């Protein structure tokens, strides 16, 4: 165990020394990996926050209950009171028949025509606001409320909620696919960098093999080089995401204000570890895939 630790510490030291000896190359590799990882990292953060934002919106989906003609205003008030106590309901507002008629007269332009009717043809309406924007729960709520005998029609105003969720789901999956592709790109970038490093150290590898160095011994500093490249790249990616957020925060606040909500980016704390960790893992894997094959090809002559 002590020997194991020592071997790995030495390999890490060697990898760090190699990185220091070629600072520009190290920096460039980190930058390329950084950009590659920043894209999915930033988009993931974006989708995640839009979702949170959507859940915080005041005007969500709503259920409109059109009551039967013979239900009186008092009866409607009682029903509203009852529905307010149902779980998942945030608020219920009553539009009495008279209010409905007044609204209609004001907006429709048929005011004069309606005056000719001897009675109000409009039903009372209860507008039920759910506590959460969950399309499925909303659907259940709507069906349940529609069973009340006083309700003529329960209309679920769900379209835009559904659309939003569909868009978010789409975006989430697109980001996942992008992340997969760009993760593969990082593997290739690191793999290629390490491959070149192996080839440029051909002599050293040959001689090390000649004096009894095992493949594992020779491979280790290369693996750590890959890991470090990924780690630095992940840190750079976090930096890039941070800069992008700083640039976007002003417009985002304005946009959020228009929707009557406040926009507070969250999940950055996850990225501060997540990106370097993902980078390091990809870097290690990338070099592992590249180095094994090439070490085998280099034999002393």
């Amino acid at each position, binding site marked *: 165990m002590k020997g194991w630790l020592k*071997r790995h510490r030495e390999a890490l030291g060697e990898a760090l020394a190699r990185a220091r000896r070629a600072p520009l190359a190290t920096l460039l590799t980190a930058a390329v990996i950084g950009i590659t990882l920043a894209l999915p990292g930033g988009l993931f953060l974006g989708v995640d926050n839009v979702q949170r934002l959507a859940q915080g919106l005041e005007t969500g989906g709503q259920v409109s209950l059109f009551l039967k003609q013979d239900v009186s205003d008092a009866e409607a008030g009682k029903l509203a009171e009852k529905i307010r106590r149902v779980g998942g309901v945030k608020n219920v507002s009553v539009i009495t028949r008279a209010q409905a008629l007044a609204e209609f007269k004001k907006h429709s332009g048929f005011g004069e025509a309606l005056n000719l009717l001897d009675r109000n043809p409009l039903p009372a309406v209860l507008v039920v606001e759910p506590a959460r924007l969950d399309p499925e729960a909303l659907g259940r709520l709507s069906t349940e409320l529609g069973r009340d005998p006083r309700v003529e029609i329960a209309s679920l105003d769900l379209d835009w909620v559904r659309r939003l969720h569909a868009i978010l789901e789409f975006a989430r999956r697109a980001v996942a696919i992008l992340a997969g592709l760009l993760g593969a790109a990082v593997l290739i970038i690191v793999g290629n960098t390490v491959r070149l490093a192996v080839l440029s150290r051909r002599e050293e590898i040959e001689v090390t*093999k000649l004096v009894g160095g095992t493949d594992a011994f020779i491979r280790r500093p290369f693996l750590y080089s890959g890991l470090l490249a990924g780690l630095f790249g992940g840190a750079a990616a976090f930096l890039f995401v941070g800069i992008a957020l700083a640039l976007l925060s002003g417009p985002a606040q304005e946009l959020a204000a228009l929707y009557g909500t406040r926009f507070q980016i969250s999940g950055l704390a996850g990225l501060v570890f997540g990106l370097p960790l993902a980078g390091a893992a990809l870097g290690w894997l990338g070099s592992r895939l590249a180095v094994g094959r090439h070490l085998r090809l280099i034999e002393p002559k």
Partner: protein
Amino acid sequence: MIRFNHVFKRYEGGYDALKNISFELNRGEMAFLTGHSGAGKSTLLRLIALIERPSRGEAVVNGQDLTKLPRRRLPHFRRDLGVVFQDYKLLYDRTVFDNVALPLAVTGTDPVEIGKRVRAALDKVGLLSKERVYPITLSGGEQQRVGIARAVVSKPSLLLADEPTGNLDAELSDEIMDLFLDFHHHGVTVLIATHDQRQIARLNKRVLKLAHGELEHDSHADTPRSTLL
């Protein structure tokens, strides 16, 4: 220590560098390998160090069958072997010290111990004052001695040397050969490929003479000195 039995080596391209080589070198023995340029001396040493595999025949070194030793066992096989190369094979981006330390570093030797043994080896070849310099600044003879120090630093039981005095003047050649003799006296098996008839005559050890890939003469049986000169 080394046993060759009807060993052939054919390089890719069909050239037969060694043909039907049979000899045995006992543990602790010292011998010279000689012959014209292209006779196959380096090839024979490469077979022993398992840099090349025999094409045919039986070859056993240090108890290991060279035709069968799996690739993953190669490193451990080579650790008990010191090789001085005709072209030195030094690493020019590392100091003399680090070059000599390499065989110890690959086994995870303690740094303090590495320091001691590297300096002892460098002292033996007279290069202790050069431990911090890079090999590129050394003369050919000095580089050769760095290679020798690296070959002996891990105290191998078998020492192979390919033209170890090729770049040295007479005086230094004597010193280096005496160094090999000293290892031989400490029980190390030594096999040296050389053109240097003067050293062969001076040390009066067994001589294996190769010609066109065949073992033309082995002085083991006869009284060699006069006949070989």
